[in-house]
Structures are given as C-alpha cells and as structure tokens.
C-alpha cells in the first residue's frame, strides 16, 4: 500500500523497479555503446559490448558523412526534410483537430456524432490500405513528390487522433463557459481562440507529442511520395540498415539511429509529465 514505513517490502519494490528500468534501458544503452564502437570491433564480438576506444567518428559519419547513392551528406539533409514535413503537419493536424474536437464537443450540430465516429475509425484503418488511394489523390492534386503532399497526408490522417483526444478533453469543459462567452458576444473562433485554446495545453501537448513522433518515424509514405533529395530521415536509416550490398555498418547505424531519434526522445522527455496527465484526460471518456 502507500506506506513508507515497511522496509523489506520497499526494498523489494525498488529492486523490481530497478530491474524493469534496466530492461527498458538496455536497448538504448546497447545502441549508445555501439554508436561508439567501430564496425570492426562490433564484428569481432557481439552487438553488446563496451567501446574499446570511443569512436566518435561514427557520429561525424552519421551526421554528415555516409552516402545514400551519390549524396554523401550523412543524415543531416534528411533530418531537415523530416522536420519540414513533421512540424507543419503536426501543427496543422493538432490545430484542426482541436477546432474539430471543440466543434464536436461544445457546439453540437446535426450529424456531428456520425462524422465524429467515422473520423475516429480512422485510427484503425491499416496503413497498407491507404498507400495506393493516396497515390491517386496526390496525382489528382498534383502534390506527388512534394513535401506539401506528405504534409497533407499526415494532416488528414492525424485528424483522427487529434479530434478524438481533443474532443474527449473538451467534453469536460463546462458548457457554461461557452454560454457566458456567447452572451458576451464572442463567436465561434473568438471563443476557441480566447477561451478554449488557453485551456488546452495538456491535451495539445499530448497530440503534439503523438503526432510528432508518428510523423517523424513514418517511412512508407516518406519514401513513396518523395523523390531524391526530399526523403525523410527514416529513408536514410533504412539505407544504412538494409544495405544488402555492404558489410553491416552497425557503428554508424547506431549513431544515426540516435541522432534521428533525438527530436522525438527530447519531446518525450520534456513533455512526458504532461503527456501522462493529458493522455488520461483524453483517453478515458
């Protein structure tokens, strides 16, 4: 129970927690260690081991050295591409989802629950099913091979999650607040902007974290709908890992994995506390 006093059982608790923490950290530790070992060193022994001398060069190579075909600029340009897709798509899908969730929860209109139900079903529609239809859509909108196209895809697909979570969060906001504002003469947008949005930090943090990591980590659309220099960072990672015509580059690959994961890891570490809070507000309704 929530009791500080009983010592032996608390030692056991700390022990178990420590074990779990170690298990959860292990993969990260392995990758970090490998990112500091040379390929030869890894090939000698196993994937798990201490670096004999710190091979910082892996990072240099991962960041700006290794080649994807004729481009030898490392992971750097791909990171930028990913950012160019992820940041706007995260912002758009979050904002639109917030507006939609706000409309659905606080301004009920005819047919809202149907639309809302369908939109949330989108959480469950398998990705593979959408690849070809998106191809056709992007063709018809002329957005194929543009980052804009990817932003569009991620914005629309992201709406399912953002709408669901924002709506679940907003239903707990007292309706009287909206009523008061309407009497004050505020319209739909002013209410959203001045009253709802300032209350939304916890849920916006959740949707931003969620959208950001999902879009950042996405691969299939990223390689299919971009060309050459626009590819996302996941493509560069795959180029490193799926190299069939090469000796495994585990050291560089590890360094690249870490660099590529930094933005999402950071966003989780910084927002993690709010994430848990907002997640509950948004998920359990």
């Amino acid at each position, binding site marked *: 129970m929530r009791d500080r006093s009983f010592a032996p059982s608390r030692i056991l608790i700390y022990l178990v927690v420590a074990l779990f923490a170690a298990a959860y950290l292990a993969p990260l530790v392995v990758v970090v260690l490998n990112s500091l070992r040379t390929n030869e060193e890894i090939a000698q022994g196993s994937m798990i081991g201490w670096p004999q001398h710190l091979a910082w060069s892996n990072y240099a190579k991962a960041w700006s050295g290794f080649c994807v075909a004729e481009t030898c600029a490392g992971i750097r340009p791909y990171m930028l591409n990913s950012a160019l897709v992820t940041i706007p798509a995260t912002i758009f899908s979050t904002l639109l989802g917030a507006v939609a969730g706000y409309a659905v929860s606080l301004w009920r209109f005819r047919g809202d629950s149907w639309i809302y139900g369908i939109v949330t079903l989108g959480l469950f529609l398998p990705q593979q099913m959408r690849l070809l239809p998106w191809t056709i859509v992007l063709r018809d909108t002329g957005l194929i091979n543009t980052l804009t196209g990817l932003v569009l895809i991620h914005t629309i697909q992201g709406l399912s999650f953002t709408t669901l979570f924002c709506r679940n969060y907003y239903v707990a906001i*007292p309706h*009287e*607040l909206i*009523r*008061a*504002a*309407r*009497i*004050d*003469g*505020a319209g739909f947008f*002013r209410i959203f902007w*001045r*009253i709802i949005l*300032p*209350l939304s930090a916890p849920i916006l943090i959740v949707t931003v974290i969620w959208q950001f990591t999902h879009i950042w980590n996405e691969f299939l659309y990223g390689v299919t709908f971009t060309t050459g220099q626009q590819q996302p960072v996941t493509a560069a990672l795959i180029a490193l890992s799926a190299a069939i015509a090469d000796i495994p580059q585990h050291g560089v690959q590890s360094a690249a994995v870490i660099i590529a994961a930094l933005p999402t890891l950071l966003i989780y570490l910084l927002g993690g506390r709010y994430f848990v809070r907002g997640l509950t507000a948004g998920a359990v309704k």
Partner: protein
Amino acid sequence: MAALSIRTLSKRYANLEVLKGINLEIESGEFTVLVGPSGCGKSTLLNIVAGLDRPSDGTIEIGGRVVNDVPPKDRDIAMVFQSYALYPSMTVRQNITFGMECRHVPKTEQEKALANVARLLQIEPLLGRKPSQLSGGQRQRVAMGRALVRDPLLFLFDEPLSNLDAKLRVEMRMEIKRLHQRIGATIIYVTHDQIEAMTMATRIAVMHRGVVQQFADPDTVYRYPANLFVARFMGSPPMNTMPGRLEADSDGPVAVVGAGRPDEVRLRLHGHDGAASYVGRDVVVGIRPECIAEASRVFSGEAPVLVDAPVEMIEPTGAETIVLLRLGGETALARITPDIRPAPGATATFALDTRRICLFDPETERLIA
C-alpha cells in the same frame, strides 16, 4: 411595458417535454425568482430567455421586442452562472471587459465601465488576478461584475450562490438584494433554495415538471400556496399536511383531523371563505410548523387555539426546539421556543395559529381556502 414577457413557451428534447406552455409577464424593476426542484426546467427556461437555446414553441419579448431570432449578444441581457463560468485563462479585468471587447467598445470607455463596476463591487484589488486565485465569494462578485458592466435590460442569474458555503451565501444574498435596490435592475433569479426565493423576490414563480405552479409575491406563495406541491416545497421544515374532514357547526366550518378517533383534533376555521362548499367532504389540512408553538405563544394578539398532543421526539437546534408530535394520529412538526423541551412520550399543550391553516382538495391538490 413589461421587461420580459413569455407566451405559451414550450421546449421539447426528443420525446421529453421539459417546458409546457409557460406564460410569464415580468415588469421592469422586478426581482423575479424561479424556484423548483432539480430538473423542473428552470435552467432551460433561462437559457431560452438568454437565447442560448431555442424554444420549441411560443414567443419571448424583451423590452417589447420579440427576440426569438435574436442572438444572445443582441438581446440586451446579462447572465450569471452557477459555476460563475469565469474565463479561467483571463484576469479578472479581462473577464469583465471581454464582452465589451467583443462589441468593439473603445478602450477608454471599457476602462471607465470597468472602474465603475469594480468600485461598486469592491473588487479593485482583484483586477489583476486569475479566477483560480480567487475565493468563492470573490469569484461570485467577479461574475456579477461581468454582468453589471453590460448594463442590460434584464439580468439572468442561474443559481449564482449554490456553490458558496452557508455563511457566504447569506452575505452574498444580502449584497445582491442591496444591489438590486440600488440599480433598480430587472432580475430573473433561479434557485432551488426557498429561503433565497422568499427573501429576495418581489415575485416568485414556483416551477414543477415544466409548469409554473404559482407566480405571486413571496407572502402569497408562503401563506396561500396554490397547491400541495407549492405548500410542501416552500418552507423548511415543510408545511405539515394531514388528511382531514371538513365539518360545520353553527359557528362555521371546522377542520377535523383523525375524525372519530379518541384523540381527534377539531380546528375552527376563520375567514376560510372557500371552505363552505367542502363541508362534509375530505380535505387535506395544511399547517406550518411555526404555527404550532408552545402554549404561551401569542399569535398576533389573538388568543391561540390550544391543543394537547403527544410528543414523539424533540430536536433542540439552539435557536428553537423542533418537536415531532401527533395530531389526531397524524405526524406533525412544531417549532417552539428553545427554552422548552417537552419530554418525548409525554403529552404537552401547544398553541395553534388556526387563521393560517390551509385546506387543499385531496383530488386536485389545489388550495381551497
């Protein structure tokens, strides 16, 4: 000209009829209190008046203008909510000026209006705070400020005090009343606390199941409740209501409780004009607990009717003693002076204020006299 007139107003949600043909005419400057048990439709009515909800039927006029199709902000009303509904992310100042900002009132005028209201409500020191930094009473005041600053034709209050603790509630009650007297505004005030209703209203509308049961000044509602519902709803402890019979002797009508029993109680009626036609029939006899008191009590100078009754239980509250007694076999409550503590089980003598007895038709439950 009526400040507000509501005609044959109905409201249905799906197959639930929440308001059934409401008619109300409210004069300018009146303090109308809507009371009724939870779910009777008070908030719905208020929301429709405010324009936050649409009536299914009927018309609403504010200041002589039909407003059915006018959006809330153009109805010249202000509303105070039970939860205060202060904008949590704005300071008190912004909460109060937000409406003016929406209506594009010039900054200087905003400032002036704000200063006026803040002075009136004595919330000047709070202007920079966020609602979360205010106590319940302060929040209440800010909510009021937001309404006052509009200077509207009509104020709508939806249970503005029900979130306050008892002490603060009494204070704020007086404050609102004083405010009403000072600015002479027209107010519609929803509550389900009948003490609030009695003490604040110029007229009370008692609602039940979507119907206005009675719309009259507080004294009328208290002394001549239109029906059993109103009789039992207003007053705490509520009016004692006992089955009885109406008889008549040479001196006039007599209400008999527990007729035929050895301990039957006969209550001579005075000035109950409508009673005549009920002689010989069953009635419901209503008598308020404060009309049953210790034997020495004098009711408005008249010699009281004295009755002996067995005491079942007493509850001394300090300021008075509540006595549970039996009248003609029926249970009734009496409110007597705190000094006197009749022993449970014994019989004591009580003074009755028979002039204030109410009679109801047991079928229609309506007031006879």
